[in-house]
């Protein structure tokens, strides 16, 4: 049979027209998806050590309904389905958690339809949906920690709803940087507690390479360099749940391309809001500034941005077993073993509290810093 006449064949299969260019290779959508999926699967191969009948690791996949986590879900779901169809071991099961976006950021964008689409398109998985303020149910000890952290700025009223109590705490934190920082700490804590209660051993985060680079740079800028070993690197978190970042080899632009060729994701994903052009730098949060920096510089020097997450992933987790940790975010208190710097000593003069780490102290309401 004569070969198909193709104008610009896919460089991989040579059997279809190319649709997308990825890393200077022109691929059809099928080969493109395979390429992207391979990058993810190789990161999770450690969970396939067991045979068909071996125990399955329980993973938790938090889905924000954004592009990256939705693409990760699609890849994992496709892989799982493919393996089950072919009688090959899967090695892991995963549960999906959605923290209601409207309770995290007051964007006013409805997400119910996206959530319904998620349930409809991925029916084989357990999907849970919880609001941000359920942190009081999952981690009841947080109330006391929040009171200690915010001091007189946060007066807790237990007769009010959890939603109002969390809003009162968040309102006590004055700057955009500190609010974003503390929100991230609380969200991480909520997801970890949910994972523990659901019997999950690992959390697989949907952070792209670009996002990890921005997270690493922002973490460093907020004095949280010692926590990069679990906030950006794959490894054990301080709560005894492993953190994995299987999208670390993929740029955000590639995930957007993947989404564009996945019909199942079109109703699920809430599109990113374009960054506002009219914000003064000083009114941005450090996290936003770093995202913008990575986007702008990443366009000029993509390899350089890839270096950031790769370098952070090479750091050795701190060998400080049993060392006291921060009540709020569980990072080490004081310096990492071997760091003889005196920045912490300077801070100790300003504040005698030792319950919170350097990074959390920086995000505390003003008069407590």
């Amino acid at each position, binding site marked *: 049979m004569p070969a198909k006449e193709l104008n610009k064949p896919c460089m991989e299969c040579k059997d279809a027209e190319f649709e997308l260019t990825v890393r200077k290779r022109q691929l059809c959508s099928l080969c493109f998806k395979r390429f992207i999926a391979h990058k993810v699967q190789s990161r999770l191969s450690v969970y396939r050590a067991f045979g068909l009948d071996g125990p399955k690791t329980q993973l938790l996949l938090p889905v924000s309904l954004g592009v990256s986590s939705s693409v990760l879900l699609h890849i994992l779901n496709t892989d799982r389905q493919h393996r089950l169809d072919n009688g090959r071991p899967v090695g892991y099961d995963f549960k999906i958690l959605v923290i209601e976006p409207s309770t995290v950021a007051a964007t006013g964008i409805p997400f119910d339809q996206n959530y319904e689409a998620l349930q409809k398109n991925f029916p084989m998985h357990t999907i849970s949906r919880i609001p941000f303020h359920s942190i009081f149910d999952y981690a009841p000890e947080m109330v006391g920690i929040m009171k200690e952290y915010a001091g007189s700025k946060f007066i807790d009223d237990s007769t009010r709803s959890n939603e109002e109590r969390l809003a009162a705490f968040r309102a006590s934190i004055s*700057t955009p*940087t500190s609010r974003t920082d503390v929100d991230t700490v609380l969200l991480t804590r909520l997801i970890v507690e949910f994972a523990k209660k659901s019997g999950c051993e690992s959390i697989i985060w949907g952070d792209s390479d670009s996002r990890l680079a921005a997270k*690493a*740079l922002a*973490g*460093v*800028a*907020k*004095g*949280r*360099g*010692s926590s*990069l*070993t679990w906030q950006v690197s794959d490894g054990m978190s301080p709560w005894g749940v492993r953190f994995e970042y299987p999208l670390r080899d993929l740029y955000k632009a590639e995930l957007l391309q993947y989404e564009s060729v996945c019909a199942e994701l079109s109703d699920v994903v809430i599109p990113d809001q374009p960054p506002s052009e009219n914000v003064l*730098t*000083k009114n*941005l*949060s*450090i996290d936003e*500034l770093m995202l913008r*920096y990575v986007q702008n*510089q990443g366009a000029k*020097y993509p390899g*350089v*941005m890839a*270096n*950031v997450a*790769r*370098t*952070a992933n*090479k*750091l*050795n*987790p*701190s060998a400080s077993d049993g060392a006291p940790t921060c009540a709020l975010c569980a990072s080490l208190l004081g*310096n*990492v*073993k*071997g*760091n*003889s*710097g*005196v*920045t*912490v*000593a*300077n801070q100790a003069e300003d504040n005698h509290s030792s319950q919170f780490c*350097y*990074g959390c102290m*920086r995000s505390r309401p003003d008069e407590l810093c």
Partner: protein
Amino acid sequence: MAPTACFNCKEARAVIIRPKNRHKLCRACFIKIFETEVHETIIGTNLFFPGERVAIGASGGKDSTVLAAVLKTLNERYDYGLDLCLLSIDEGIRGYRDDSLETVKRNAVQYDMPLDILGYSELYGWTMDQVVEQVGKKGNCTYCGVFRRQALDRGAARLGIRHVVTGHNADDVAETVMMNLLRGDLPRLSRGTSIVTGSDASDIKRSKPLKYAYEKEIVLYAHHRQLDYFTTECIYSPEAFRGSARTLIKDLEKIRPSSILDIVKSGEDMAALVPVEAQTIKHCERCNYISSQRICKACTLLDGLNRNRPKTAIEVGVGMEDEESSSTLMRQMERAQLSAT
């Protein structure tokens, strides 16, 4: 509007808002607090010992001028017992370095410190003007930075001094942390934030007493003490990418003034987390200077320069190889002096 009283003494009129924490201070309290913080850094890190001879790497710029002024003040106030001198490197940049060296010469008189000047042409056989003529403006900062680091050590060795202090400030250290993260340079990430470097790997100890001092506060200190310093930027353009990191640091400072110190703290913590195998330091096979590679960066750069040196520039009748070895020879002589001290 009524004048604001100083946050510290509550008496004098506040004339300064501290960039580090936004405290409003009077001139005297600011100067005292700035000096006390540098003193605490020195004491907290056991930087000096009584009787130690210390060379201050002096460029005539604000950082090294403030460093010289503060060290002289603290040495007298707290009786450190240090024997201080100024050491300048003449990179050979006409219209920039020759002017700033005049400032250093005046500083030497003002602070009553001996001054020694060592030139790139003397050490390497190349001035920066000649380097730029050959390699162009793009990337010339790499040559200058690599050469200057070695030059300070070699100058100190010539003076029989084993401790060189430099005016690197918190902004410089923060920028270095970010650059090393962006470049994926783990070995430099492990040593870039250390207040003291080179003590194990080289005879010359180098330290940064202003490591926790903000650049803006250094400028304020120089201004309020009316120090004599040179303000012009180098005439050769800086690296574009490093420029983006510097802008990033300045933006961060606008958002959260403590960011600079926070990056330094992160850098210190990350340095302690760098795997040991990434920290191995070797010695250059040619000049014996510390290097992560078989041949150090300065020798590699010199090789490239000498290989491409225009024949018309060779007027002393030596061939290409002879000339290459002559500059290496010169540095070997320096090494001999290093080991003799």
